């Protein structure tokens, strides 16, 4: 159910893996239509020949030494997992 823009909140929410109630989708649709209407003002500008800025101060080709170092143990890495067993994260079955 799209509003005044091309954005279909219910569809994009599924892409973003966020379940929404119908009410929430309706509220977001109106609010995000307003935001998209506001950002329309960018179309007033001529950006022909302008490079796209990815960072205010770009840094290129940052390398580090390819060497081992101390970092988390697997116990530490698993310590915040909602479910874990045998040194692994446990999730519902993915492949039948």
């Amino acid at each position: 159910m799209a509003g005044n823009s091309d954005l279909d909140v219910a569809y994009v929410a599924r892409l973003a893996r966020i379940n929404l109630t119908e009410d929430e989708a309706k509220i977001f649709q109106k609010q995000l239509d307003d935001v998209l209407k506001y950002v329309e003002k960018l179309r007033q500008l001529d950006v022909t020949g302008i490079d796209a800025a990815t960072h205010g101060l770009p840094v290129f080709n940052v390398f580090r030494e390819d060497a081992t170092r101390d970092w988390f143990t697997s116990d530490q890495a698993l310590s915040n997992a909602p479910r874990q067993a045998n040194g692994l994260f446990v999730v519902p079955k993915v492949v039948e």
Partner: protein
Amino acid sequence: MIGNESTAMSIADLQSLLRRREVSPREVIDALRERIEAVDGDIGAYLSLGIEAAMKEAEHANVDLPLGGVPIAIKDIINVLDQPCTCASKILNGYRAPYDATVVQKLRAAGAIPFGKTNLDEFAMGSSTENSALKSTRNPWDLSRVPGGSSGGSAAAVAADEAFGALGSDTGGSIRQPAALCGVVGLKPTYGRVSRFGLVAFASSLDQIGPVTKTVGDAALIMNAIAGHDPQDSTSLNELVPDYVASLGNDLRGVRLGVPKEYMIEGIDPQVRAAIDAAVKQLNSLGAEIIEVSLPNTQYAVAVYYIIATAEASANLARFDGVRYGYRAENPKDVLDLYGRTREEGFGREVKRRIILGTYVLSSGYYDAYYLRAQKVRELIRRDFASAFEKVDALISPTSPVAAFKLGERVADPLQMYLADIFTIAANLAGICGISIPCGFAELNGHRLPIGLQLLGKPLDEARILQIAHAYEQSTDWHKARPPIASNQALL
């Protein structure tokens, strides 16, 4: 012994007491704890304290180090070893940080004691701290008003003397705007000046950690500790760090300050405008030359920001899926149900809105019209600043077009909330540094509400804006004013 009232002192003053052994680091933590117990029920600045860990560190603190024995509050989006890092979100329920952020390591190396995690808008998305899923934070100057955001807990804690200083993070104004609304100092460093390693990422090309303090000198002290290159953050800049404290205290003769003509727009509160005009005159009387400059493309900054920041957020927040840490929805029937319900139940509305918008502007068919165009306009904004800085050393503007607004006033209209950051956002897009300092008060219904002056500086020119801010601060009394909650507080 240090009384409750003494928690109002600056870090610099606290350090002299500590170094003269007139007070011990443990007594300082104790005094803060008492102050927090007395006022935080009203203010709501803290999400957790970690008193035992802080007390243990206080025992071994070396007070002769640059920040020796000084407790620093940390915005709860920065990892502190073994402490929660909630990002004020339900989705990080139960998470404990398995490591220290680089800034926290650096603070510890300078002798500071991380003490207390402060409230924020969920994942730093907001301008009022009302988007916290965990707690409501109130402005110490008027408890019916917001502290600003997203680092509202850090700013309110410092303003209410529940902290000597704090760290915040600033993606579109999240240090400077709450500092302005709470009447304290807030510095957003140049992008790359301070490591982001251990800061939970919201918009990686915009995020930057910085200090929230009572004085400009204290901001310089914290910057001395946290600035510098970090191999763990590939965007951190490998540039020499000056001594920010040593750069303070100069007069302003020969300094050229630019007033962007586009920034004195309609919609600025008349009391804010009057305070900024007076501050410009004051800076002029201290020797600075005032020059009008133009930043024609900054009017597009909010629009650019809400495309780029949401796009980056939609990617960064994909990691919160209920698998490796934090909240997981109960009894998922399959893995898609696990993702969809974990994120539905774990994220608040503003976070969902931004992820959806960010996913949309990056999606096939819309990428060029939104994201690519926004990046090009970002380049135009960056060039505006570069050409202005050919003529001036720093720029002056209000930090926020209005003083603190009422709790609830803007929550129903996200666009109105977004426009609260109209003067701060462009600095993040251009990667430059900025500071907000107190410059007066608005009188509203019998309450005095702080007004913030923003100074924007060239990339890596933090020393210059600190110098200008310090000279202004020392010529005024605004930073000495305390909110009514402080003076009403009974002592021991």
